[in-house]
């Protein structure tokens, strides 16, 4: 599945942005923490992992397993990276939102 013309959902955008913020250290648990820290949102395991899987399937993310750390029962960490398609999708979403926001910022920000 490649990029499609659909806009990203809010949660998907947040996940993509969180991964970009984390850079090299974006694995499941870190992503959830980042979302919690920056967006002040508690995300359930289920929601985050299912969303990550779906975005990998859509081609917005790619993942790789790295050498197991200690304290993980001999299991590797799965690190995520945003693909070019993911970046494009983020840009498109942002652009679409910005054109919609245009002219409304001041009014809305007052309240």
């Amino acid at each position, binding site marked *: 599945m490649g990029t499609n013309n659909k806009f990203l*959902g809010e949660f998907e955008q947040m996940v993509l942005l969180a991964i970009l913020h984390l850079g090299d250290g974006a*694995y*499941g*648990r870190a992503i959830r923490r980042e979302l919690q820290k920056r967006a002040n949102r508690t995300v*359930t*395991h*289920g*929601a985050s*992992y*299912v969303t*990550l*899987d779906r975005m990998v399937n859509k081609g917005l993310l790619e*993942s790789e*397993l790295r050498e*197991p*750390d200690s*304290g*993980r*029962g001999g*299991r*590797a*960490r*799965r690190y995520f990276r945003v693909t070019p398609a993911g970046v494009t999708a983020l840009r498109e979403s942002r652009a679409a939102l910005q054109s919609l926001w245009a002219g409304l910022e001041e009014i809305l920000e007052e309240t």
Partner: protein
Amino acid sequence: MTRWMGGGPGPPRLAEMLLRLVVKDPESREGILGDLWEEYCEAADVRSQRYATRWYWWSAIRLALRYATAGLPSIPRRSHRRSFPSPHGRGAITGLARDVGYAARGLVRTPGFAAGLALILGLGLGAGTTIFSVFDAVVLRPFPFEQPDRLFRLAQIAPQGLDFHVSQPDFVDFRDRAYGVLDLAAVEYQRVAFLHNERLERLSAGLTTSALFRVLGVRPALGRSFTASEGRPGTNASAVILSARLWRSRFGADPDVLGRTLRLDDGVYVVVGVMAEELEVVSDADVWLARGADPSTSRDDHRLQVFGRLRADVRLPDARDEVTRIAADLGERYPASNQGWGAKLAPLTDDLVGSQVRLASVTLLSALALLLLLIGANISNLLLARTTTRQREFGVRFALGAGRWSVMRLLLAEGLLLGLLGAIIGVGLAYVLLPLVARQPELVPRMTDVAFGGRALTFAGVASAGEGLGIGLGSAFQAARWKVQTALSEAGGGTARAVRRYRDILVVGQVALAMALLVAAGLLARSFQQLRGVDPGFQTEGLVTVEVELSSPVSRLELPGRVEEILSGLRNIPGVDAAAGTDMRFFDLSPRNFTELGRMDAALEDYISADWRVVTPRYFETTGVPVRAGHVFPNPLEASGEPVVVVGETLARSLWPERDAVGQQLRWETPDGLVTRVIGVVGDVADVHPVLPQVASAYVSYADVPTRSLTMLLRSDLPPSDLAASVRRRIREVDAGAALSEMRAVRERYVDVLALDRFVPSFLAVVAGVAVILAGLGVYGLVAFTVARRGHEIGIRMALGGGPGSIVGMLFRHGVLLVTAGVVIGAAVALALSRAFSSLLFETDPSDPVTYLAVGVFLTVVGSVATYVPSKRATQVDPMKVLPA
């Protein structure tokens, strides 16, 4: 604890396996398991191992559910139309799976609530499955015979209407003349002494022919049945067939038992076969001996038990006509013995189960049905409470285009899922309960057959599916009535009137059902109290019996002396206060001696049916039967010159209403029968069953009618086990060849006889107890819910100056009104139902006001408490919180 459930180093393996099962992608799985491990370790460090394990389970289950329903977008977020596909066409199956997934997630979101519901349902289903299994084993399950509905017992009916066994010549007539419609076979039971390992025991011997096994359709498990010539009158067959029970208990189930010899009484018999176990359903015989009916014996001697099987294509009414015709014909031909005698065919199944047991089972089963109904109503009520709070959620779903059907399906799935959880708990409970019930002393015939099996599972499955469907449909239909607008406008916190009314009706129904069950249990318990309160007319406490079969005497005349010698030996045992003998067995429904008694001048139709017993001197002293007038048999034993008799009060009053019975003369059987003189009058006794009406009874002296079979009675405060050895020794000292039974306390027999009467009310009491708890919960839930939902309204009322008292009063009045309505309706239902089981009640009025009043008051109190506690909470509503600023 192992790492399987959690507790070792690292997260619980079982939970990990669960995740492995649902997360299919290996890369994703690796990442998730690793992440959770990290978090688990952190939680274990910061909090505790226990906490971490709980946390892990909780996360794993939620994750698993999420993955199990993954790829299915959540409803309101997007694609809501597709998430509720049309019930028609391909989408239906995946739609159903999805609904179950949503329902499961919904239940997990409120685990306490879901667990509570499943537990209530599980308790009900567990109790239900247990009761059903008992009923199934006792009443429903077919007898182990071929076509049991075509098996009957033939009895002769005396002119007075009593059922009798069949005399030998009469049996031969019935057998030969009804040949075209019935295949008849007879058996007579006798006690025989069996010499085994140099000890004598008393066995029950069935004297019969191969016809009996043919009629019942039972084949030997080992060896052969009797041959046609064995048992022919006049021949002396030496063949014996063992019962499966005796074969196992005395011969260790030895397959080489065939051909061995047995000493029974004075004869030597050869074992030719072992009968199949099925036969023990209809017979207690330990051994079977060949003996056919002898037509040359007396027609007055009714001692054959007759079984019959309808021939192929013969209808029961035709067979009944035939039997009646033969009886009438015999009456004409042998007027002296058979005039006025009829005959009847009774279904063997009725005979064995008994109408009382059947009725008791039906009562229990109805109670069970009521209980399951109550549980269904309760859960439906609780679910509805939640559904009402979820009205807004559903409103949104409707607004987003979800069809009404799809919302209903979701609720239905919830109900079915709860049913499944309840079934799991219920089956587990029944699995534990059933062996306990089966271990009860022989409550009713075939109680030992009670076991957990496929039928119990089927019942649990069907019942839980029914419950789940009922619960689901209940809330689904309620939901279907909501209008989208209503649902959305309900956001403020009011409650739709229709829902409120439905909930009120549910609560009234619950209280009514609890009332009906409690009244039934109460009535039966009262009846049992009455039964226990029956004075049997003698002192059962401290009375011990042992049955004795004396060895053959040279002459019967030597028996009384031998018995007196035995009795004085028994009286010398330390701790024994008194001893006597009789030919009867206490609280045993085996056949007794019946006769007709009349005054000297009376015509035959004025004779009275009475039972008579043979007793030794000191019988009345030993049993504690009071002497009302005259005196009883003298001690020591001696044959009185003139035949004398002691009579019970009822007999004395019936024969000589105005005169003193002592000194009167009494005729036996017919106007030219034996004459005896009454020497004393004693109190009436109920020594067969406390419910049986007290019959006229007569006592004759053992000195006049010596028999080899006797029940020895001892009055002692010592338990039977302490007495057994010395009693055995004392008896053997006098009669080395005597066969003895186990020693038993009469009180124990008495308790056994009342087993069914005790069993039914206690079972019902448990069911009723559960019903009361459920009704209480129902009322509590309703009021608590109302308080929660109407917080807004209560806040306004309080803000407007309504004191907390008036609010509590309002809620309380409403709750108590519902409870009262339930109690009244329940009383009416109970009154109607109690007529149906009134024959189970002993000297208890089915409309007994005390029971109704007590139960009504009790339920009202329970209901009021259940109302008061949550209404009190209403006063804690803070108007500032519920009203917008």
